Structure formats: structure tokens, C-alpha cells
């Protein structure tokens, strides 16, 4: 079986799996990184949304071979140690989560949006496709605006220190 190396949450990992193995199952079952969730397997619900070289993508429809040499960040790699990313902090401040299952993907999608649009409009936020079956959208929207106010592109927002 071929071996593939990529950066995962800042560390280099190597896996021996089939080239067409889906990154989602490699992350979850081979590497034990369970933050990205299975919700559809076809890139629609976006519960697995993570970052590939900083951009949002869906591991469930990405072959592990296509990640070789690239940087993958999952929800586990978003915070800076114990200091949460501004989007994570905004999610807590707005008490967004209900069942919580889609939220790692929602947070990663929001963080990627803010990286390209530091002050997104409601229309920008409307482009997010992630499904939240509990219907937390109104709080997600507020949390994104809050994170934007805190410098949600990840560069600022350090005033949000978790007690």
C-alpha cells in the first residue's frame, strides 16, 4: 500500500492506505482525529469541513492522495493551544450549539470565510452551505459577526482569553 505524508494540525503524518481512500475515514479511523464528522459522505452537509492549505474543503470527498504534501487543519488544530480561535470563542459567547454535531464543520467554514472576508455581510454569510439540522443558523450568523468584530481572520481577537 502506498504511503502518503501531509501536515495535520501542524505535524507531519504518514499513512499507508489506498490512494483513493477518503481523507475523512483516514482522519477518523487511521489517525484518530474525530472532530470532522460524517454526515453525508458526498460533500453536501459539510459536517466534515476542515481546511486544506487554509481553505475550506470536505475531507469526505477528498482522496488522501490529493492531500500529500499539503497542510490539513481540522477543528482540533484551530485553537492556539488553550487559546481558542476567535470563531470558537464567538461560538461559545453566542451559545450556538444544540446537538453540536455539525458545529466543527460550521466553525471551520466560518473561519475560512472570515479569512477571505474579514467583515462579511449577511449576504456573504448566506453563501455558507453547511447544514444545521437543529436550526442554529441565527446564532451562527451572530457568532460570525461577533468574530468579525473581534478580528475573526485569526490575526487578531486575542482579547478573547478563556477563563
Amino acid at each position, binding site marked *: 500500500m502506498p504511503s502518503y505524508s501531509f501536515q495535520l494540525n501542524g505535524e507531519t503524518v504518514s499513512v499507508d492506505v489506498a490512494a483513493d481512500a477518503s481523507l475523512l475515514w483516514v482522519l477518523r479511523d487511521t489517525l*484518530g482525529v*474525530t472532530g470532522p464528522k460524517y454526515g453525508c459522505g458526498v460533500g453536501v452537509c459539510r459536517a466534515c469541513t476542515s481546511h486544506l492549505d487554509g481553505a475550506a474543503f470536505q475531507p469526505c470527498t477528498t482522496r488522501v492522495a490529493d492531500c500529500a504534501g499539503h497542510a490539513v487543519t481540522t477543528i482540533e488544530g484551530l485553537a492556539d493551544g488553550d487559546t481558542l480561535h476567535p470563531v470558537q470563542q464567538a461560538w461559545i459567547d453566542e451559545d450556538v450549539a444544540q*446537538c453540536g454535531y455539525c458545529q466543527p464543520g460550521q466553525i471551520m467554514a466560518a473561519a475560512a470565510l472570515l479569512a477571505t472576508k474579514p467583515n462579511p455581510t449577511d449576504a456573504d454569510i448566506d453563501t455558507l452551505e453547511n447544514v444545521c439540522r437543529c436550526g442554529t443558523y441565527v446564532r451562527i450568523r451572530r457568532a460570525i459577526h461577533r468574530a468579525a468584530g473581534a478580528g475573526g481572520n485569526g490575526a487578531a481577537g486575542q482579547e478573547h482569553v478563556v477563563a
Partner: protein
Amino acid sequence: MTTPEGITRRRLLVCAAATPPLSVAVHLADAVAVATPAGAQPAGAGAGTAPAGIADIVDFTDALTLAALPTQHLLVVEVTTANRVVVRLPRAEVGQGITTAVAQLAAEELDTRLTDVDVVLEDARPELLFNQLTGGSNTIHALYGPLRQAAAAARARLVTAAARRWGVAAGGLVTRDTSVVAPDGRRATYGELSAAAAAVTIPAVPSTPKDPDDFTVIGRPTSRIDARDIVTGRARYTQDLAVPGALPCVVARPPTLGGTVRTLDDATARAMPGVVAVTRIPTGVAVVAETFDQALAARDALVVGWQPGPAASLSDADVSARLAAGVPGFALPLGSLTVDRTFDFAFVPHAPLEVLNCVAGVRDGRAELWFPSKSPIVAAQRVALALGLPADRVTVHVVRGGGSFGRRLFFDPAIEAARVSQAVGRPVRLLWTRGDDMHHGRLRPASHHKARAVHMLGQVLSYEHRMGSITLDGSHGLGDLLTSVAVDVVGGVGQAMFQLSQHDLYNLGVQSRSLREVDLLFPTGSWRSVFSGQVRTVDEIMVDEVARALGRDPVAFRRDRLRSARTRAVLDRVASAGSWGRTMAPGTAQGVGLHEEYKSVVAFLVELDARDRAHPRVTKAVAAVDVGRAVNPRGLEAQMQGALVDALSVILQAGVHIDAGAVRESSYTDFRYARMRNTPATVEVHVMPPTGEPGGAGELGVPAASAAVANAWARATGTVARRFPIVP
């Protein structure tokens, strides 16, 4: 941690909830007899007062709470030597926020920091009988008293232990921050006192819960206690658990609902990389492999001949026709004095984002299962039956769930996983794919409604509503639960739930609502708010229609006829906060809807933009909710926000189609549950001041919000919708 010498990690003080000496049995037949016969006025009732329905005497909430009552003393609050307060909660957390609300109840009575409380989902405990079923929006209503009593008892013993230790009067001690504090400043943590407190038999201070006027935690808007775990990806769902050796497993399922395997050629699949086993189970063919990729690939390689399911001759049009034929029409046409309408609702899947799944290990005559279960006791019994094991050899661990909406009252994946594990001799992690969930998930029953109001000289003389619904499956233990409190379920669990859940909100003369179930062998299940989602929507559309026929404003008309001050108060609040009647652009409009159930009332006012009829959007919503007493107003607000999204989804755009006994939709691509772009940027939720003890909240918002959206559509487009979802 301050742990007494030689005692480590043992939970010491365990206080049980007292059982109120209360037992009530209610027969539906008796309740019917108590209800006023049609046409007669109850004694002392004013003109226009409607006779009370069954649910006005005893409702579904009462039944659930009564069923839990005999075992409430088995609920315990523990105080560990590690200074943790532990509540073992015999309910499922699937997003409704009950773990946070329960932590608040314990923290309030114990004067504990919220962060010192752990709420653990309890394994199936058969001795709890009917007190481990999560449904009917009943958790907080049923546990509010018992849990506070247990926590207050624990506090009294901790105070007594401190008084003895210090040789002071117990009455002079206070509790705060998970400690007992003496007037002279001496302080002992609960952990330090736990061992001594466990030996206290007669507390020196009262064990009664606080007066609500003294509440500081109950009623305070509180964020989820597990928020940080969720946003960091640390929250563990079933498939995230590290159960040693558990292998990925998927099941090939039939193309039609309820189909079965006729022939199987698995030679190719068995030879594929990573495949460990292929085994037939009643619902299909299970593939166990080293990875999910391999299991899914091998599943695709199976050659299966399928026997069509029992509904294979039925498509949407057939279902609608059978339902309509099953509901008798009204006898006398009364011309212009009637408002006479029919409505149809499509099937709706629950589609929780975490698909159905279960981890199961069966070996050496024992079974151990992990999954999000709302009925773990019944699940364990059925697993035992399926495996041929004694019931006490099955352990069910209840895991946090990624949504439910009623779906996880059923435990189909647990039965499947247990069977597969038994057959292959390995623990398995069974996963339904999203396609499995769409094609074989249970469905909110499709329904047909005939409704008629008769009016004369501006007065409504009668209102009748006849619902025809595909039979609701209640085989998850609810029937037995209702039987345990002497509710007659001979007519079916659905019939009993229908009769116990319908409240007359308005004085509309002589009122009746009836249900006819039509058994077309579809897999069904109660869906957030069960029948009320459709029944109340129809009722509220009819109220708008009657108001229109009488030339009345819908809100003013409702005000005149509402039967309770609580419902009038929430209506007034949304009308005022939502600027009812403000001028709106053509093609856009407001709509209102109300609902009463679970001892709670709610009103929604929405604004809808229907200028693009293929893509209508709710642009604003205002809700006012009175649940008696909101334990966590922030969580209550979340439930109303979520209910609104459910409502606008199923009313406007989200349902499934049946083609020859198969569900057409296969993912969120074609099952159009709302995305961000379909939802309003503003949702205002007004939590009303306390009016009593807590009622239910989880399902409460769906019927009122559904009705508000449907009414806004009619006012925006000039066309009353007859079929839901409106966009087919």
C-alpha cells in the same frame, strides 16, 4: 482535591429524590365521558365557551410524568469526595440542552458552581421502568421537582455534617460555591464533607427545595455546559468512541421501504481488500471491514436480488388518495356560512445530522452497546430478544446524540449492530449512510385533513377537523408507558397520543378533532411535535380563514376568542414586538400562529418574502413563549429558534416523495432542509415571566411557527396553501 485519607474517588453522599404520594389513573374513556357532549354547554360556562377536550383534563405531559413518578426515588444526586456533584440523568441529550438545565437545577439547590456539576447520561436501568424515555418534551417537567428534592436533601446533610464537625448550630451555616461556610469564616468543601454527610440520617436543617423567589441559577440565561467540548471537537459521539477492536460496518439495504433479500452473491465482495465478514440480517446484508472505505466499496460489489417491500405499489398520488378516502367528508354543505378546506402534508424524515449508528460488542453470552438512545430500557430488551440472551446480559450505554427530532426513540441500528456482532464474533461500529437514512429512515406520517367552520351573524358555531394519517408506529415503549398509567391504547398509540395532545385554544362553538389512521405499511415515527405540527397548522390557517370570512383582523379575532390569559399574553407580545399590521411590500406579509401543549404556550409572528414563489424566505420572526418557568431562558430561546427552522423547512420546501414504495430523496441535496440562506437574520424570542412550574419546550415551537409561516404565505400571495411543503 481534598480527599479523606484512604478514600479515593468513591462517591459517598447519594441522595435520592422523594416520591410524592400521588398516583392517578386516567382512562381515555372516562375522560371522554367527562367532556361535555357535543352541542351542550358546560354548567356555568359563558356563551361561546367550548367544551373541554380530553387534553384539558389530562394530557400527554401528565401521562409521561405520571409514568415516571413511581421510580423518581431512584434518581440520585451524588456528591463525590473529589468535590463534584454528579447527576446520573436517565434521559438522552440530543441537542435539547437538558444536561445544562439539569445542572442548573442541581446547582441551584446545592449552591454549587455550575462548573462543579457533572451530568452523566445514565446507562439503561431497567428498574426505572417508564422513567427512562426521552420524549414528549417532558424531561424538565418531570424531573424539576424530584431532582431539586434530591439536591436539597444532599445540601441539608452536608450542612449537618459541617455543623457536627465544627460543633456549631446547623442553622447558622450557609452554603455557597460548593462549600459550607460558618459565620466565623470556617469553610469546608462538599468533597471534604461528603463522607460524614453520607452518615447523616436526620438532617438538622430542612431538606425542602428553595422558594422560587430565592432562585439565582434557575431562570438565569446559561450557556451550554459542554460548549467548549463542542467547539474544540472534543465532544464524543458514538462513532468517536474508542471501543477496542470495533470494526466498521455498513448494510446493503433494499431499494424499496421494507424490502427483503431474495438472493445474494457476495463472492466478489468477500474477496475485496479489508473485508472481514459479510452476513445477512433481516434488514439487508451487512459488510464488516477494516475501514469504512473498504466496507462501502464491498457493499457496492454485493449482488443482491431484492423482494419488494409492502408499499411497493404506492406512490405519492396513491397515498394521498387513500388518506383522503379514509377521512369522511362533512355531511351537510352549508354554503356561504361555512369555511370548508382540505390540506395535505408530505412525509418528512427526521434526518438528524448524526446518522443512525451503533457500536456493539456481543461475546460470551453478553452484549454491550453504545448509541444515542431515547428508550434504552426497551432497546436493551429488544436486543436481548433478537440475540436470544437474557435481558440482564445486555448493557446499553447512552451516548450524546447528534440530533433526534423523535428518530432516536427507535433503535433499529442497535438491533442490527447486535445481530452482526453476534454473527461475526467481533465488535462492530455500524453506520447508516446518509442515503440509508433518507431511503429507510422513519417518516413523519403523511396526512390529509378536512376542516370546516360554520358561522352565522359573526359568530362561529362549530369547528370540525378530521385528520387522516398513515399509522404512527409507537413500538418504542410508549404504548406500554401509557398503559402503565391506565391510558387506554386499544385504538393504537397514535390515537391515544392524538387525543391526549390536542387543546382547544379558542372558543369556536362546538369543536371536534378526530384522527383516522390508515395503515399503508410505511415506517413511521413521531416527529418533533408529533400530530400537532400538522393539526395546529390546519387549525390556525382555518382561524385566519374564518377571520377573513368575517372581515376581521386575524390577531384581533384571535384575541376575542382565546380561552386563556396565557395565550392572550403571548399573542399580545408578538403583535406588539413584531409590529403586527405594519405596511409591507406586495408579495411580502406577516403571519401569526399559536400553540399550547406540554403545559406551555407560544406565539410566533413571522414575516415572509414570497415575491419569488419558488424561493420564499422568512425574513424575520418574533416569538413569545411561556413555559411556566424557564429554567434556562437561553436554552429555551435556542429551542424556539430551532423550531422555527424546522417549521419554515417543512412548510415551505422540505419533504420527501414516494415513488413506487421508495423514498426519492437521497441526501440534503434533494431533501431541502433549510440552509443559512433560507433563514431570517433576526429571530426575537421573548421569554415570558414565570407563571408556574416548568412545562415542556423542545417541541413546542414547531406547530405555532409552522402555522405562522403558512398564514404569512396566504397573506403574501393571496392563496391559501393546501399542500405542504408549498414548493413541491
